[in-house]
């Protein structure tokens, strides 16, 4: 007996806990939406707006009020797939309920709503909605309602868009929902702007009422960016237009993937976001990304940052071969990373924007000889230098060579390219006479070997050797052949003993140095016209390498039979070795053997025309091998 009351207490306590559990948890409904029992048979409802909210400083201008209420209407279509739409017909001055006037309105009313802030009446017949009116009340229980157009409503204020979205939900046929996060939930405590964004329960409600359209899931979209470009210093205004923009606190805007402080922009309506101060950024295209509850959208290359207008100032060199390939430097101003340079309509090869004033690259092949435009495109801006670059199919070039101080007869070869055969040519190889001195020039072994006239005028005091070649003074029977890199002449240079190793002597074609000056020219066989070839200079590098005379085995600075005897003594009789094995290696095969003596004998007595370089003068060994020279 004594235990029964205790058990009874426990049972009561358990019962109480059970009741507590049942009543203490608010019901959560997967589908909380409720319907009023009427819908629009054409899946559409027309409406007019009376933009008569009186506090313009808070509610915005009439135009802005219209925009905001339209957002409340658009939410039910743009944030859902429902096959329903509110069709805006224009403005009205009506501001009272009237279900029989054929005009459905959304308006502010000067009336007191009693306990109501706003109210919607849907009218119809036999479950078919035929009319609706939404009124926002001036006062509620004689206290003024302050209707707000933007930003989180302050205490005492009400968000026009959020309440319009809720009331228009009633207008299309939804009752209050049991889902607490839904716009159609009866309670909005602690919720202001989020009412603008429909909950899945709201969406389920309207889609159950009107079925769905064959469209994708609701998404946030950016349809335009105005203006599309602006200064790289930023601070300018940009307007994004699109769909399903929500509100500032729900939105993140990224410029080139960097979040932009929301002090620099604001969501003005569901379709417009205004950036009041763009950030600074390097010139070029950037992406814009907008993220909110509804989704995320990224527009690549949506906005271009520009510096001052880009401009080409110069091209160097101004001339190049038709085959292209030579290095070229474009100088200009305000050049950006997305700058694109074309020469004669062809893109610069391997282009690199070095800085805002320099672009480097290689010349593309040309379509035809002659001048072409050089153009810079940077975003929407274009800068053109007319006829700034000339493709020249006629070339004259000097070879690159090396020689040590004191070297003699270092060959500087002059080669020619021409698309047609030539009758004649004239050039002047120029050099620094304080480092090198020419000794002679020959046309042996090249395209001008058969020339009937070759004039050579060495003017070392002026640092120039003039060469004039006339293939056939009496006619066109002998011509210099068309082709690329055809040897025209070899100018032999002595390097002065006091030349400093490492010095590079330019070998150019400065015809103005000589007396009289020589006009650099090719004379075409086809029409007898003179053309000025493109000059590609060469160089002579003074190197700190032993100089020797090929075949001079005994080192007496001559090539004769004593060199043959010296080699054979060394090879077969145990004679002394040479101080310069490279000189003994007559055939330059990297080995000292009987073949060297045989080649030298052939050169001396049997008509072998030449030996491997250095030849005919002294110089360093141009070919790497395992033997060397100590002289």
């Amino acid at each position, binding site marked *: 007996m004594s235990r029964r009351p205790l058990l009874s207490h426990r049972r009561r306590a358990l019962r*109480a806990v059970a009741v*507590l559990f049942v*009543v*203490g948890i*608010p*019901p959560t409904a997967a589908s909380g939406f409720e319907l*009023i*029992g*009427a819908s629009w048979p054409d899946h559409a409802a027309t409406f007019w707006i009376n933009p008569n909210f009186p506090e313009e400083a808070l509610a915005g201008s009439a135009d802005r009020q219209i925009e905001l209420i339209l957002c409340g209407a658009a939410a039910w279509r743009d944030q859902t797939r429902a096959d329903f739409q509110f069709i805006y017909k224009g403005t009205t001055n009506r501001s*009272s*309920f*009237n*279900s*029989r006037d054929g005009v459905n309105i959304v308006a502010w*009313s000067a*009336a007191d*709503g*009693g*306990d*109501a*802030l*706003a*109210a*919607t*009446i*849907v*009218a*119809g*017949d*036999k479950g078919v909605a035929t009319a609706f*009116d939404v*009124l926002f009340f001036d006062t*509620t*229980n004689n*206290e003024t309602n302050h209707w707000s157009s933007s930003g989180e*409503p302050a*205490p*005492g*204020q*009400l*968000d026009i868009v959020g*309440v319009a979205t*809720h*009331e228009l939900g*009633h207008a299309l046929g*939804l*009752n*209050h929902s*049991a889902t*607490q996060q839904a716009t*159609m*939930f*009866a*309670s*909005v*405590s*602690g*919720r*202001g702007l989020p009412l603008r964004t429909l909950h899945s329960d709201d969406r389920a409600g309207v889609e159950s009422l009107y079925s769905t359209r064959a469209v994708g899931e609701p998404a946030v979209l950016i349809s335009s960016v105005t203006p599309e470009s602006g200064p790289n210093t930023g601070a300018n205004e940009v307007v994004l237009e699109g769909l399903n923009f929500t509100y500032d606190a729900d939105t993140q805007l990224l410029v080139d993937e960097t979040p932009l402080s929301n002090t620099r922009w604001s969501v003005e309506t569901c379709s417009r976001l205004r950036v009041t101060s763009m950030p600074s950024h390097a010139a070029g295209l950037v992406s814009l990304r907008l993220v909110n509850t509804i989704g995320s959208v990224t527009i690549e290359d949506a906005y271009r940052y520009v510096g001052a207008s880009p401009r080409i100032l110069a091209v160097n060199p101004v001339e190049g071969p038709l085959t292209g390939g030579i290095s070229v430097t474009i100088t200009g101003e305000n050049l950006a990373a997305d700058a694109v340079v074309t020469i004669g309509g062809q893109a610069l090869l391997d282009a690199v924007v070095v800085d805002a004033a320099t672009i480097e690259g290689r010349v593309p092949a040309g379509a035809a000889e002659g001048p072409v435009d050089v153009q810079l495109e940077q975003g929407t801006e274009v800068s053109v230098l007319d006829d700034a670059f000339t493709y020249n199919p006629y070339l004259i070039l000097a070879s690159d060579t090396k020689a040590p101080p004191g070297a003699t007869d270092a060959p500087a070869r002059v080669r020619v390219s021409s698309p047609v055969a030539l009758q004649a040519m004239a050039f002047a190889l120029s050099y620094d006479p304080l480092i090198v001195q020419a000794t002679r020039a020959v046309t042996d072994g090249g395209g001008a070997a058969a020339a009937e006239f070759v004039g050579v005028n060495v003017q070392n005091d002026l640092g120039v050797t003039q060469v004039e070649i006339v293939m056939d003074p009496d006619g066109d029977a002998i011509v210099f052949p068309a082709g690329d890199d055809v040897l025209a002449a070899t100018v032999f240079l002595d390097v002065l003993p006091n030349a400093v190793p490492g010095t590079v002597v330019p070998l150019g074609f400065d015809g103005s140095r000589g007396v009289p000056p020589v006009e650099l020219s090719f004379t075409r066989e086809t029409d007898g016209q003179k053309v000025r070839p493109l000059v590609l200079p060469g160089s002579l590098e003074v190197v700190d390498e032993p100089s020797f005379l090929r075949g001079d085995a005994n080192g007496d600075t001559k090539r004769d039979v004593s060199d043959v005897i010296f080699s054979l003594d060394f090879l077969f009789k145990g004679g002394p070795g040479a101080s310069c094995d490279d000189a003994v290696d007559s055939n330059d095969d990297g080995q000292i053997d009987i073949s060297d003596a045989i080649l030298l004998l052939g050169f001396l007595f049997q008509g072998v025309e030449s030996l491997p370089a250095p030849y005919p003068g002294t110089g360093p060994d141009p070919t790497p091998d395992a033997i060397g020279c100590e002289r």
Partner: protein
Amino acid sequence: MPGSTKKNRRRLTLAAFAVWSVTLGASSLPAAVLPYTLPLLAQKSRHIIVGEVVALECYRAPFHGLGDVIFTDVVIRVERSLKGAAAGTEIRIQVLGGEIGTAFQHCAESPRFVKGEKVLVFARDYQGALWATGWHQGKYSVDRDGSTVHGDPKLPIGRDVSLAAVEEEVRRAMASASRSVGEGSAGPAQAAAKQEGAAR
């Protein structure tokens, strides 16, 4: 006496639980009407009654400058009075919306009544008539035996509770209001409700 003390303590505990269970459900606040808690609802109302809906009368009439609308007059025979109208009398509540023939007007903020339904109604004066206080916040279905008030998460009474618990809460609210008036701070309920609404 000790047994009586225990019984009193248990009653107090249950009463406290009942009050807690009622007020816990009062976090639901209507969207487009001034949001009320149960104490505010009680303080704002001239009548708080339990009764049966004996008639629904729909008609068209001007809505005080807001156009011609359909109203429904709900006639309730008072069976139990928590405030105002006495038991045995009838009160008439005006509701925005209704049906005339097959034509209808619907207002989501209005309470719904069904003839023969037993209801708990909070009512106040508005535009020369009695209206449910806080529109749909002021009407609840009650079990036929009068023991349980059916709440709704959307309303100030958020869940089913005993009528006794509601009565207790109403008494406390009115007592609190009386003290406030006596202390010279008139209208705390209205101010609190407005603030709650403004915070939306």
